[in-house]
């Protein structure tokens, strides 16, 4: 009797983490970059979680809100994790999802996927300056295609455009980044705002060129970054792991250490390389939390400036 009571005590449970399978809640499109990160993590994690099964559980809907709600409802449970992205913080800023970074426990930012602007090989533009000058000269006639409206891509571009003196460049929203690239490849828009991995093969084949990249990419040594072209900003797409709210600090540190080990796994490294993504872990979990809060604030400022958000 007394033994059973000891077995159920909170300290007993903590010592036993992980006491069952780990769930990664995925609210992203199947096969898309965020879903792939969840799955690569599920592959690499088990050895670092005492051999426990790590499963990806799909809960899509409400621009991610359905999955986030599930995660939020599992307060204090270290066995449930989710992959959070720049889209999540932008959706928080627009109010599209009824959550704030404080509703989750930030654990580990894993990767960044810098934005870039690409054009078809026969484009008259060679630098970001060319693109924005043309837009200043012919307002409303230069178009850039990219994923979504009031999305992370849109805000990344809006910030760049603001730094260039707000020329009238048309943002043509598409359902996906790949669709936006097709629009530029087909000559329907002048340029595409996208990520490196989506245009990588076209860059290698010479069918597309990059005008500028938000952060220097190892694979693009000759492409000047936004900063090198005089636009002092580094908008990136990022993805990281968060837990449910109210995670015990010791468990949070434990989870972070285990995930850090998992992403060093050779299989995971291979995935990162193949998907052309860069590691971008931060100093600690608090820094990741501060980053998320800052992302929400920056997005909100830009949305207000554009008149999309009131106040």
């Amino acid at each position: 009797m007394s033994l059973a009571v000891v077995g159920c005590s909170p300290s007993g449970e903590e010592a036993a983490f992980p006491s069952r399978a780990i769930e990664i809640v995925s609210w992203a499109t199947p096969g898309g970059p965020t879903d792939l990160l969840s799955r690569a993590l599920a592959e690499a994690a088990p050895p670092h979680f005492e051999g426990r099964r790590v499963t990806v559980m799909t809960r899509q809907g409400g621009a991610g809100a359905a999955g986030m709600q599930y995660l939020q409802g599992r307060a204090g449970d270290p066995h449930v994790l989710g992959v959070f992205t720049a889209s999540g913080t932008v959706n928080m800023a627009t109010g599209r999802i009824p959550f704030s970074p404080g509703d989750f426990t930030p654990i580990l930012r894993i990767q960044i996927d810098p934005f870039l602007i690409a054009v078809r090989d026969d484009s008259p533009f060679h630098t970001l300056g060319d693109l924005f000058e043309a837009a200043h000269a012919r307002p409303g006639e230069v178009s850039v295609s990219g994923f979504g409206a009031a999305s992370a891509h849109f805000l990344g571009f809006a910030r760049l455009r603001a730094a260039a003196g707000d020329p009238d460049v048309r943002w043509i929203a598409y359902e996906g980044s790949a669709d936006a690239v097709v629009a530029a490849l087909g000559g329907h828009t002048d340029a595409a705002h996208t990520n490196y991995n989506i245009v990588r093969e076209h860059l290698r084949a010479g069918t597309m060129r990059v005008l500028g990249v938000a952060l220097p990419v190892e694979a693009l040594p000759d492409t000047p970054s936004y900063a090198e072209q005089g636009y002092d900003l580094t908008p990136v797409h990022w993805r990281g792991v968060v837990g449910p709210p109210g995670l015990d600090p010791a468990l949070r540190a434990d989870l972070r250490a285990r995930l850090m080990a998992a992403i060093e796994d050779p299989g995971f490294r291979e995935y990162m390389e193949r998907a052309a993504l860069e590691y971008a872990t931060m100093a600690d979990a608090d820094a990741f939390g501060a980053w998320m809060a800052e992302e929400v604030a920056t997005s909100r400022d830009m949305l207000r400036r554009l008149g999309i958000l009131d106040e």
Partner: protein
Amino acid sequence: MSAFFDGLLTALQPGNLAALLAGSLLGVFAGAMPGLSSTVGLALVLPVTFALDPTPALLMMVSIYMAAEYGGSITAIAIGVPGSSPALATTFDGYAMTRRGEAGRALGISLFSSMSGGLLGTVLLVLALGPLSRAAIAFGPAEYFGLGVFGLSIVANLVGKDPFKGIVSALLGLLFFIVGLDVLTGAPRLTFGTNALMDGLGLVPMLIGFFAIAEALEAVTGRRRSTPPGDGIAGALPKARELFGLWRTILRGSAIGGLIGAIPGAGATIASIVAWNEERRVSKTPERFGTGLPAGIAAPEAANNSCVGAAMIPLLALGIPGSASAAVLLGGLTVQGVAPGPLLMTERSELVYALYAGFVVAVLLMLAVGRLGIPLWTRVVRLRPSILMPLVVAISLVGTFSLRGNAADAWAALFFGLVGFAMLRGGYPLAPAVLGLILGPMIETNYRRALSLSSGSHSIFLESPISLVLILLAAVSFAAPAVRSRLISGRTRAPEPDTHDGPDTHDGPDTHDGPDAYDNEPRHEEHE
């Protein structure tokens, strides 16, 4: 050619063949289960492929994709519920044939046409990769708008005997598509402040609601068909002569599937409806479409399988997924370190040829797996609708939920079930509403996108030859049924074709799907 045989040898290695076979079985299952689709099947095996080498992983995925397009027609034919959305058009004639007691014949025609379409789509993929990929990117906002309007003009052939009710149905579909986030501004529309409606009302819940739940309500309220559709239903397969006699239909369907399938985002559902409609247009007896004509099954089924090879064209040549299923495939390829794009053919030609050969083997395995399943399905058809339909509803709701793990989808299906039931009671055809929901987003977003590019000038739709031709075709297609029936009634009073099947005559108006009502059309014209 020798490269192709090397590819064939690769595809026939035991491990690869096992992957192809597993894919066929899973694909037919995912396709046939209402709620699941090729996309879901692919997403399910995605984690499994992580552990495989690139070749078997890729072969398993293409095999699932191919087999699911046939699988969708099984439930469409057997119980009138499209197993996945590209089989929607197959319900028109396929289910009508089943109700006549010829389920085996209908399934046989579907399987043969799916096989032929799959092979022809592969031929297109191999021979026209370059030109078709260039044609695909020529589709910009104006062209997509034209394609959407052309697709919507098919409503004219789906409205049934009462054009007013058909148009109301189409408008209802267009109204439903508005729900959700506006793609171009990100603003929520008609969501009533709820998160559940943010992603809009999906096609899958609509298909489940309209074709499974509404039908089940009809069955359990005893309003229709209390007897099984045709006692002593024939499991007999079609004769070879009948199948080969469909070669023109299959060629046309495959060509339509191949062209529309290669355009990113257009997809197999639109292609199969267009193929059905074209077949009806060229037919000498268009009024009999929807009453169980072999060509009405062969055309959409050839088209949706031909789309599989075609959807690989933008994926392989440009690295751009042409469909939701191709997007999952791209994810799988990325993990395998295979980067599709302009250089794939030169750098990984052995893999590409193994893929081509894999398509051929996958089609043949689909034929074998499908053939073995036909006796089983013709037995399912013999169940009493009052038992079968609630079962179908239960399975469908589970399928709808598992699609995204979201209970809101199951609620949406129930909502559409009630809407569909009310529409059936009121004599409103359901197919136009489905077409509205599918094409509404394509038309609206591309219309606004085009105007945004042209600074508000509508001339953008006329300057593009593709868009202009499509819009003209749409006008012709929309007006054709009315003009033709006027001509016919002016010339001769066509005798009323007796296409109602004896034991299966319903007491209510037969508005299950639009075209069904077509056997009533001449009657309607005589009233004028």
